[in-house]
């Protein structure tokens, strides 16, 4: 008879479509056959993953339709192992999966839409941002200060207008016939304000500045980098705005 580890290994492999020859002798086959009994678990495991993905990616589902979404979610469930007992963490890799999913190759904006939805989900559950801690720094050497982004703030850049696409696919929002998927990309700050998640479009300079700060670059160098790429960027106004809004915090 198999050990517990062997039995569980065979069971898990069979759930995702690998041969079940090893498993059948271990399963009681009576009034209801062993394959019929096992099928209940196969259905529920994949079903749980699909349900978890649907909860996080409603816009992706709307864009591709329920049937295709279920097909993609099932493929993800079979290919991408869940590494946590907390099902809420399972969808983290869905955007990367969609980027190489054959059926979705023509929808180049889909992975970034998924990235945006995952960012919204993460920010919604992130720790509450502490109040900004830059008071009393009047005499500090500002150029050398290093900051970090709180978990309740997330930066996202896309060559696609995913912000507008997301807005147009919210419940009750009427589709805009003038919307053009090729109308250019967006830089976004996804942040929580109180309990609500807000999407704030950024100008490129502000995105470059915040990305550099998030990576631990000293303030002086981060400003220089943003200005090198965008000489017209009003760095003073952006710094003031994001310091006061608590977008970045002193490390």
């Amino acid at each position, binding site marked *: 008879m198999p050990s517990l580890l062997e039995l569980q290994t065979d069971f898990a492999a069979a759930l995702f479509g690998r041969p079940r020859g090893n498993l059948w*002798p271990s399963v009681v086959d009576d009034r209801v056959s062993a394959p019929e009994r096992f099928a209940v678990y196969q259905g529920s495991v994949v079903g749980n993953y699909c349900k978890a993905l649907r909860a996080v990616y409603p816009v992706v589902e709307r864009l591709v339709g329920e049937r295709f979404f279920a097909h993609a979610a099932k493929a993800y469930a079979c290919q991408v192992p869940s590494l946590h*007992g907390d099902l809420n963490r399972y969808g983290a890799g869905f955007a990367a999966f969609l980027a190489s999913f054959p059926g979705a190759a023509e929808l180049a904006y889909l992975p970034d839409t998924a990235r945006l939805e995952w960012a919204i989900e993460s920010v919604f559950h992130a720790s509450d941002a502490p109040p900004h801690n830059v008071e009393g720094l009047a005499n500090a050497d500002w150029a050398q200060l290093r900051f970090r982004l709180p978990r309740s703030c997330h930066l996202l850049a896309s060559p696609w207008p995913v912000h507008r696409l997301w807005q147009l696919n919210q419940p009750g929002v009427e589709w805009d016939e003038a919307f053009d998927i090729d109308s250019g990309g967006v830089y976004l700050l996804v942040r929580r304000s109180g309990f609500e998640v807000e999407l704030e479009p950024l100008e490129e300079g502000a995105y470059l500045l915040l990305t550099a700060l998030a990576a631990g670059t000293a303030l002086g160098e981060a400003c220089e980098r943003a200005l090198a790429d965008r000489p017209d960027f009003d760095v003073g106004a952006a710094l003031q705005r994001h310091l006061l809004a608590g977008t970045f915090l002193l490390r």
Partner: protein
Amino acid sequence: MDTPLRRAATITRRRAAIPSRAGIGLRTPHIREILATRPNIGWVEVHSENFFCDGGQPLAYLDRIRQDYAVSLHGVGLSLGSLGPLDTEHLTCLKRLVERVEPGLISEHLSWSAVGGRHLNELLPLPYTEEALAVVCRNVHQTQEALGQPILVENISSYLRFTHSPIPEPEFIAEVTARTGCGLLLDVNNVFVSATNHGFDARAYLAAIPAAAVEEVHLAGHDRAGDLLIDTHGARVASPVWRLYQETVARLGPVPTLIEWDNDLPPLAVLVDEMRHADHLLEACHAVAA
């Protein structure tokens, strides 16, 4: 061997926190309504993993619920039936939540859901062997050590059994409670579903469980799919399950009882209605006890 004594002390403490009344499984769509209307609900239970997050609205709402209702934490992802040490990150999240919520009861399932680092996120049945018994007991010990308090383990609904499973389920449960000092969360619907699916006598099962270890009862609805009953948590409690429940509380005395509903979640009023029916049966049993 101070286990029985320790357990008696903790049971007294926890029973004071979760009343021997009926409560409901708290699901996100109902939270706002409960906060706004503060209905007369005995207590509530939440799925621990849904509050493993670091902050935001769900945790804040749970804090507010906790001010007015006793809360029980019910885990679905620890996998007490898996070999190897438990996922310490999961256990750390649970401990953090326990410290925040100070729940009246903490429970997990008598099942497995992970192997070789891969999680299956479903309550899968164990073969009832000496090996599995040792694994479950070690994991229950580890959990109780980490949390600094006893937990309850719940009997699951199952759709298949293993050919080599020599220990009867009630006996397996009795051994786990005796060896670890944990309590039993008796799910009466799960007993009915498994009894139907495997052709055993639900009443004989209920007579064989360790009655003194039962600290909580679960009730939920099931559905039929072909020749099997499925524990969908998507319907009202079935009549035969209510009868089994009535017989169970007549024997065990008043015990905290939870109405669970997860799929096709109805308006809160439906859950409250089911809860009142359970309360009504519990009151009859209180009256006899008095």
